């Protein structure tokens, strides 16, 4: 049962009502539970941010590290003992702003980690500053007139940097997300799963999705299935307010830290 993985005495967690991070935690725990992982051989690693608090609610050993450095610590754990299962929780700021260089190099090295990024488009924990994924025109405390910079597409970035498994879902697509985490874990090498999720408190409040339900509706309506788009679009550009969801890549490039080879 996935509830066995939770530290019941630490719940309810500190996340705001309707925050997508809790949903993503459920899906990840459901995936590791389905795979029958042993708690003693599993390590959850995170950096700093609302998203990065997730391992604190899970019963296995965990490392809550410094901002942006989750992947550096996770690399150390995995290379020291490749037989461990190492799963990283990170945020869009943690992974792609302060930790951006660790991210592309972990993809390039293809270290056998599974990384789940809770992309809520902003720095949630510190009050809603813009992040490298804030979409153009959207409001945050540091982009009061609307963000003007082109955001990162984290999934495309991971594909380009060499990760063996890359998928993107949202906190609405719970079943698909759970399957993607299972597939990511089963693929040797670096597995990256981006999850677009709601932060009703900071991002939602400033962008007309104050209610968690409105935010989930927005995510559901903006998401376009990648397979369907690839078949029907004939090379057109995706409208800027939409994003693709689905599996982006699954391949077997040489990897590091895979138990059999180490």
């Amino acid at each position, binding site marked *: 049962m996935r509830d066995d993985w939770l530290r019941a005495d630490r719940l309810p967690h500190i996340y705001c*009502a309707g925050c997508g991070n*809790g949903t993503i935690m*459920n899906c990840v725990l459901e995936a590791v539970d389905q795979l029958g992982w042993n708690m003693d051989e599993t390590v959850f690693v995170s950096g700093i941010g609302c998203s990065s608090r997730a391992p604190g609610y899970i019963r296995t050993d965990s490392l809550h590290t410094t901002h942006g450095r989750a992947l550096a610590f996770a690399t150390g754990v995995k290379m020291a003992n490749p037989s461990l299962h190492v799963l990283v929780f990170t945020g869009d700021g943690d992974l792609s702003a302060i930790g951006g260089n660790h991210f592309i190099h972990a993809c390039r090295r293809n270290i056998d980690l599974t990384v789940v990024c809770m992309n809520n488009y902003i720095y949630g924990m510190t009050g809603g500053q813009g992040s490298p994924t804030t979409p153009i025109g959207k409001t945050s405390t540091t982009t009061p007139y609307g963000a003007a910079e082109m955001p990162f597409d984290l999934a495309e970035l991971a594909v380009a940097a060499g990760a063996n498994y890359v998928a993107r879902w949202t906190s609405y697509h*719970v079943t698909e997300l759970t399957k993607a985490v299972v597939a990511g874990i089963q693929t040797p090498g670096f597995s990256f799963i981006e999850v677009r999720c709601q932060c009703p408190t900071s991002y939602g409040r400033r962008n007309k999705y104050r209610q968690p*339900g409105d935010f*989930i509706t927005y995510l559901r309506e903006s998401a376009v299935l990648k397979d369907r788009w690839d078949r029907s679009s004939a090379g057109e550009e995706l409208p800027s307010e939409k994003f693709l969801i689905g599996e982006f890549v699954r391949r077997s490039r040489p990897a590091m830290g895979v138990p059999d080879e180490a």
Partner: protein
Amino acid sequence: MKLDIDESRCKGCNLCTMVCPYRIYQPGTAPNRRGIYVPHLDQPERCPNARLQQIYGRRLCGVCALICPDQAIRWEKEKPYEPHNVVIEY
């Protein structure tokens, strides 16, 4: 099995009301002791997981519990039916 919301965990976000195909969850109408509008369950015995989980030996559907950000939804084992002796006092 009996479907139940743990009131000590629920934060009243109403995401469960959006996903249940049977519309079992209805937005709460009165705040509880903690000021939270916990959803109300409309005939929860209709939930296929409540009815069939033990027969199939696995969780069925379960999307409400997966999406619930606060891990508040659960199915509890019901006590087997016990006939009660009714004592009538005159």
